[in-house]
Structures are given as C-alpha cells and as structure tokens.
C-alpha cells in the first residue's frame, strides 16, 4: 500500500509499522485491554523493544498513529484518483466521507471499542489528536481550492472557523455511524449526503450572504 509514503519521515521499516498496528488492534480486540507492557507486546511479536519506540513512544502514541492512518490512507487514495481533481468541493468532501466510512467499516470493532467512553463530542480524546489535525488539513486545503473555484464564498473572519465547524460535523457523523443499525450502514450514507449538501448550500454564495447583507442594511438605515 501507498500509506508508507505519508509517514516516511519516521519510517525505514514500513512493513513492520503495518504489522505493529494490526498486531496491536488484534490484541486489544481479543483481550479487551491493552498489553501489560510494551516489553511484553514486543516479546509476543518477536521484535526488539526499540523497534517499537522508533515508531511510537507509547501505546497512546500507537493509537494516534492508527487513527491518523485511517485518514491518510483515504486522502492518499483520493489524490490518486483521476476523477477526484475534477469534483466540486462538495463532491470532494462527500467522496472523502464515503471513503473514510468504508475504511472505518473495516475496523469497526476497534473504533467502537475505542470510542466507547466518549459521550461529549466537544472534548477531543488523546487518540484522535493526529486524526483531527489530518482532517482539518484536508478540509482546509479542499476549501481553499473551492474558494478559487468559486464554490465557497469568501467571508472574512468567519471562514477561518470552517475547519472547526467541519470537525464538529465529523463528530456528528461518527456518532451517527456508531449508533447506526441499518444494513450496510445505509442510514449513515444518507446522513452524510444530506448534511454535507446542506453545509455547502450554506457555504456557497447565496442565502447567508444575502441575509448578512440585508441585516447590515437594516442596521445601517435604522440608525
């Protein structure tokens, strides 16, 4: 897989990174708890302990890598797709979400186990830190290219907050998906489709700008 490319600054053993991640997920899911120590984990895996530290400083760090890997994998795949460059901004974001949901589906048990204790979406759990910044980076670059295409309205002050708003939206999607019981998580697809469409209608030039414009006018004339 092409994933190794993205994390190349740390890596000189790409294959064993994947092995580390899947071994850790496997352990967590079959035992329901973390290995007692990095030492024991490496021993069972038959590798030296420092090979682990070359990649992550702790299990917390490893979990971060796993989550970030989900996003990086999807983004790499999207950029490798010839059609993707021609998509509108909305379709780019949709394609990203559908790709991510497909990726997460493969690791659903892990995701459920990790997010089990999360109830408030406003607090970012430690393992999602890298995931969050990867996500915001993707959204920011996509929205910026959207602005130059004219899909997205430039609104001083407000548009700096867009990545943050999208992060809240991402939280909504994850929680929705976590609770979704429909076959093939079809309802989550609908939720993504409808909410992203609405979001981009608000981001585009139109209703909101006219409302602000009109509000400003009323404010000015009322004085």
């Amino acid at each position, binding site marked *: 897989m092409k994933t190794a490319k993205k994390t190349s600054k740390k890596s000189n053993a790409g294959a064993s990174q994947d092995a580390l991640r899947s071994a850790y997920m496997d352990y967590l899911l079959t035992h329901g708890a973390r290995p007692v120590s990095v030492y024991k984990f490496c021993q069972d895996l038959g590798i030296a302990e420092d090979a682990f530290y070359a990649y992550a400083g702790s299990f917390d760090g490893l979990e971060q890598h796993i989550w970030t890997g989900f996003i990086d994998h999807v983004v790499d795949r999207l950029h490798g797709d010839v059609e993707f460059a021609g*998509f509108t901004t909305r*379709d780019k974001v949709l*394609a990203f979400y559908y790709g991510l949901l497909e990726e997460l589906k493969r690791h659903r048990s892990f995701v459920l186990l990790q997010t089990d204790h999360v109830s408030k979406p406003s607090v970012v759990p430690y393992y999602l830190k890298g995931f969050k910044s990867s996500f915001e980076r993707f959204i920011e670059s996509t929205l910026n290219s959207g602005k130059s295409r004219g899909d997205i309205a430039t609104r001083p002050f407000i548009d700096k907050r867009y990545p943050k708003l999208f992060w809240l939206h991402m939280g909504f999607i994850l929680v929705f998906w976590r609770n979704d019981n*429909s076959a093939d998580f079809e*309802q989550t*697809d609908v939720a993504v489709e409808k909410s992203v469409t609405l979001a981009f209608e608000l981001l585009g030039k139109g209703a909101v700008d006219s409302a602000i414009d009109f509000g400003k006018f009323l404010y000015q004339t009322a004085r």
Partner: protein
Amino acid sequence: MKEQDRIPVTKVERASRFLTAGAKIGANYLKHYSKKLINPDTTTDTLHQDNAKDIYNSLSELKGGALKVAQMLSMDKNLLPTAYQQKFVMAQYSAPPLSYPLVVRTFQKAFGKKPEQMFDTFSTSAANAASMGQVHQATIDGKKFAVKIQYPGVGDSIKSDLAMVKPIALAMFRLNPTEYDEFIQEVESRMLEETDYELELKRSIDLSQRTRHLKNLLFPTYYPEYSSHRILTMDWIEGRPLGEVLKSPISQAEGNRLGQAMWDFYHFQMHTLKAVHADPHPGNFIITPDSQLGIIDFGCVKEIPADFYDLYFQLMDRRILTDTKHQLELFEKLRFIYPEDTPKQRDFFIATFIKLIEILSRPFRDGEFDFADKSYFEELYGFGEKLSDMKEIRDSKKARGVRDAVYINRTYFGLYTILHDLKAKIVTRRD
C-alpha cells in the same frame, strides 16, 4: 378548521404546497434534533404534533377536482386519503439529487466496482428523476443504457411517513381506523414493493416478454448483470415522455394509434396476465421517434387475485344493472353495501353505485368509444363532484369497497385520463 382562501390550482402550485410543507417539516425535525442534543430526554411527541399540524395544513388545501374524481372512481372514500398519502410520501423525494460520490458508493457496495469500470461512459449527473431514485445514462460500445439508482433509506422513510400521515387522514375523512387499516396496508405494500429493485427487475422482464407481441409497443431489455437491489439497468429508449408530447397537438390518427396500443396493453394485462402496470402516468411512457409507445417503470405492479377478478369484472356485465338479486349479492361481496346498513342507506348506496358503474362501464358497452368526448368526462367529473358533497357518503364510517380495488381503480382512472388527453377513439372490446 379555518377557512381556506383558495384551492391551489396548477400542478406546480400544488407541488409547491408540498414543498413548503416539506420545508416546515424539515425545520420541525431540526428543532427536535437540537432540543434532543441539549436534553436527551426530549420525546418525539411535540415533533409529531408539529408535523401533524403542518401536514394537515398543506393536505387540506389540496382538495382539488382530480382527487375528487379519484375518490369517485374508487367507489368509496378510500382512494382519496390514499392518494393524499401517496402524494405526500412522494413529495418527500423532491429532495436534491444524489451526489455522484454516493452513486459511486452505491455501485461499489453492489458490484465492488465504480460505474466507469463497468461502462465506457457514465453521466455524473442524473438525466431524469425516477420515483424514489434517479436515472443516469451510460454507454458500452456506443450502445446507450438507462441506469436507475435508488435513494438509500427510502424504504424506512416510506414506513414512517405513512405511519405519520395515517392519523391525520383518518381524522380528515372521518374513517373507522380498523377498516381503513387494510387500505393503508395495500398502499404500503405497493410502495415498499417499488423500493425492491430485484423484484422490479424480475417483473419487468416477465411482463415485458409476455406483452411484447402487442402492436406498437416497445419495451427496453433489462440487464440483471448490471442490476442489484439498489440499481436497475435497462436499454435507453430514445424519444420524448408522453407528458411532453401531449403539450403540443397531435393528429387524430396518431392519437388513435397510441391510445389503442395503450388500451390493448392494459386490456391484455387485466384479463390475460392478471397483473397490471398500475401506474399509468404520462411520465412512464416514452414516444419514440418512429411513434412507438415505449413502456418503462414496472415498479408498481398489482397482481389481481383470481376471486377478486371474478367479482370485479362482473360489474362490467350489463345484466348487473337490471338483475336485482345478483346485484345485491355482488354488492355485498364487494362491500358496497353491508348487511347491517339501514334500508335507507342500502337504497342510497345501491342507487349511487349503479349510476357510477353505468358511467364507468360506458366505454365498454358498444365495443368502441371516443375518449375525446368532452360531455362524457364532464358527466364523470360532475358526478364525482356531487358524490364528494353527499352527506350520506361523508357520514358513513364504513369503508365501501375492497382493498384489491384500490390500484385497479387507480389504473383505470389514469388510463381514461391519458386517453382523453390523446383524444383517442378506441376499440374497447373485440369479441
């Protein structure tokens, strides 16, 4: 109920009524969701009340003439609420079209491939809207295909929409819930069948093969290898939808030819196949450049049970109008009258149904009928108008008629209307 200013007239106006209702309902849901975020114990009661109010307001503005006729044709008051329900549920799908990424995802879930890996070309935006989905155009080696893709989650949505409208419909038409239930079930089962593309594929292949021999008809070929429970692929039929063709005047000969093709198609299905394409809507027919009648969309098919068939078509027998003993027996079986009716009610309903049957079976009587006949349709509509104002009908809490008749009546109603628009002269019987 507050007085209405006026009844929405045009189709567009009526549709936009539903859109505003839709928007209001959307807002209700958002309100509910945000309340629930703040307080997880919020119940859905307020939501349902809000929705009920908005649906009621929009529905009650719609008591238009077309639906009154539909009501009359149903020979009871069940088709009216069902028509409302159906319209309402369908109006939910005036939603924005599916995004291309979701189309790709649907393909990947069904076939593990992207559309462009299966076809040489594939249109990224929808060419047409279909009931509960949208149609894309694709090609392989220059041959065109129509690929219908269903909106995900439609099935669940239908069930909850129908459940929501039911109490309102009951209240509006003052019906008895238990008797009315079976009619709702009929509508629900037909609409849920429409969401099952695997069933539609099977029926489309079967019905089109068995009706193929009729003159002036054209059916697309269906492709099971490119179809799944959410995707249905068939030949692209060149031409214009009937609704569009009808906007400009067409010649008498042309109208007769197309009308006859349509009549024969329905006649053959009713009496030979005993399964009917129950959605004669101008959008479901395509007029090809060489003036053939292309038939698409076998989503809504009513299979006619044998015992119901025997009862129903006895109504077309002229003796029913004079032979009183036979009449009573048949009317009771079809539940036009009930044993517990008072003699006054009984006389009233017998007289009303006799008049109805006389009007409705008139096209069959002489073996030939001119559907251009304005006076016939005026009589038909006029009688419908009168019926819906009759106190006896409004006050009867009983369902008059049986559930199997709902879609058969609707089919005849659609057929008569299209033939009238075509101004077609039809040979209705060949015996």
